[in-house]
């Protein structure tokens, strides 16, 4: 029972971390061009988005 006092907040925090990470990736435009990303992964040159 006492375990829960620690574990639940930790579980929620980790889940929240995942949520925040997703929201950040959405905001930084990583879903803008999914088709292009598939091709860029195998292209030779290093073309990072200059945002």
């Amino acid at each position, binding site marked *: 029972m006492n375990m829960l006092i620690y574990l639940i907040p930790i579980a929620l925090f980790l889940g929240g971390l995942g949520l925040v990470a997703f929201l950040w990736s959405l905001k930084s435009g990583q879903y*803008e061009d999914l*088709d292009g990303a598939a091709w*860029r992964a195998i*292209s030779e040159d290093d073309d990072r988005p200059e945002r």
Partner: protein
Amino acid sequence: MSCCAAGTEGALDLERAPHKLPSAEELVISSRSVGPGLMQTDLAVPAVHCGTCITTVEQALRALPQVERARVNLSTKRVSVVWRETVDGVESDPVDLPRAIAATGYDSHLFTAAEQASDTLRNQLIRAVAVSGFAATNIMLLSVSVWSGADAATRDLFHWISAMICAPALIYAGRFFYQSAWNAIRHGRTNMDVPIAIGITLSYFASLWETMNHGEHAYFDATASLLFFLLIGRTLDHVMRDRARSAISGLARLNPRGAMVVGIDGSREYRAIDEISVGDQIAIAAGDRIPVDGRVIGGGSDIDMSIVNGESAPVPVKPGDLVQAGTLSLTGSLTIEATATARNSFLSEIINLMEAAEGGRARYRRIADRAAQYYSPVVHLLAISAFFAWGFYDGDWKHAMMVAIAVLIITCPCALGLAVPVVQVVAAGRLFKAGIMVKDGSAMERLAEIDMIAFDKTGTLTLGRPKLVADHAMDPNTMALAAGLAVHSRHPLSQALARAQAGPVTVFDGVKEIPGSGIVAHKGEDVYRLGNRRFACEGQGSGRADSAYSEVVLSKNMVEIAAYRFEDMLRPHAVAAIADVKRRGFTLGILSGDRAPVVSAIAGKLGIANWKADLSPKEKAGFCAEAETEGAKLLMVGDGINDAPALTAAHVSMAPATAADVGRQAADFVFMRDGLDAVPFAIEASQRAGRLIKENFALAIGYNVIAVPIALLGYATPLIAAVAMSTSSIIVVVNALRLNRLTIATDTLADSGSAVVSPSKARFAA
């Protein structure tokens, strides 16, 4: 064009470029400043479709000194370029950007920057899905512990935590449903969102009340998962529409944004189109579209009217003739005097007609909303009657409340809310893969119920490209002569003649094109002429008006050597597609603005009995509206500006990607294939989607028939509700995925010049 040979084809493509590069002024108008001395220009490049395309276009742009960054977006088929206004003190020319792209063999167009609103809405929806997903999974974890028998204190703690996770999710992710439900109620209507909004709110507060009173059953998990599932459906629906919209606006044909206005003193000034006033003189070069209605005061040319009134043969104009906005000057340069402002030009007259025709479609209600009309009163009635029945039966009002909530949750509109969008998204994905865009889900519902199809002729049944009729043995020597003259002209008939000549062409000296007439050239002592009969043979009248063919005559010293006849090329698969829809029992007709002999020839070739020719845009729209009032459900397929009101008035409409902007915006479906087989395929897909939606409704209702009595009798615990809810949702989604077996032959996907749809486009349908 194959992407891999892009570089080698570049030179050819440039010569045959269907449109000219945008001018520097137009580029500047459509650019935006992104920092000190930096400008950003977005260009649509419809032909990019693979990794090689990306590197080719980006490298070509980055090689330019003024380009700061260039990035291709393959999903939207656009490239955004950030460039410096000055390089080493020299002002840079923005036309270098499209020129650099054209040199690699890709066409680029400016497009009207799509409003960012839909994009922000998409991101808002995805964020809401993420938040509600987070809430649903965590609450579900806690609920599982409760179901597996947590004792009283732990259970209460878990319920409290669930309540705290659920509240922000309800407010943040539920706001879409609350807004939409409130809108519906305010206008005295009800839609699918009303029972959803009431259901989630009631179940949340009842569960909160249960928690405060140390109750056993809380429905937080059901509330959160309901939100999560429904938002997925909502987001898919939005993404589907968004995708079609961005693909369509990416194709936007280059409409003139401005024109070269000639002052009284001969000075030239480039002005935006809205600033042109009546009486201004405008210079129009060969290959330009005419920006406003006007009268020709100088020069001469052949005008391509096909996009405006369906007339397939170019019309020669001379000073004194009137020209309409949107038409294309082919062979010569003109000076026109504006007789109307852009706002009052022919095009705006069409837009007024379209607005008048809007009414018919606004009255159509989506199948989900029609289902909601019956569904929501029934559900609420059931819940209320269960509440009172239990309350009066044993006086335990708290229990009665819980039963009522259980009914609302169990009959969750989840399956119903998912049933329609998932099927429509899968169907739209299949269509997208086949190169057909759908504007929204209701378009497929409407297409599934049609019984009549009307086609426009020029540009719809035909490609709008003339083809040489090989009706008598072509003498190769004469052909070489004719083609040698024809290569010097932009006139579509000349170009068709030049294309038809496979062998070498004769070389002439002193070739001169006389706009509106033809080409004249010398070879030794002889004068050769190629053009209409009157020009080539001086004074003999032409028999054009009563013939189904356009004609070009080659003469030597005013004596006719050969006459070439042309007809408009049918779209590939047109005959098969027409036969196909005929076999399905639809009534077919042609509504054309072209001349009667031309229309009847095409109608005879395709076996369509009903046709009308010489129709004005108003008459076309009138025909569609009439069909509507007689109770027929009409599909209109058309491409021109003159079809736009008819496309709006018809029950449902389709347009090819090559259509005029206004036509594309009026249509529910836009197909990027050259083949007309897009029409039967879209009908087939829509009918199948319609059947699947009905099946899904039957499944959802069948499930409710079983589940509701259980809830009414008070046996439904939150566990049973959660299991039942999830299974029903999964069943309808799996059923929708059966549509993925629908395919079409891929040999007529339109090639360069319009988007090539990659298989990955249908990603969200897989």
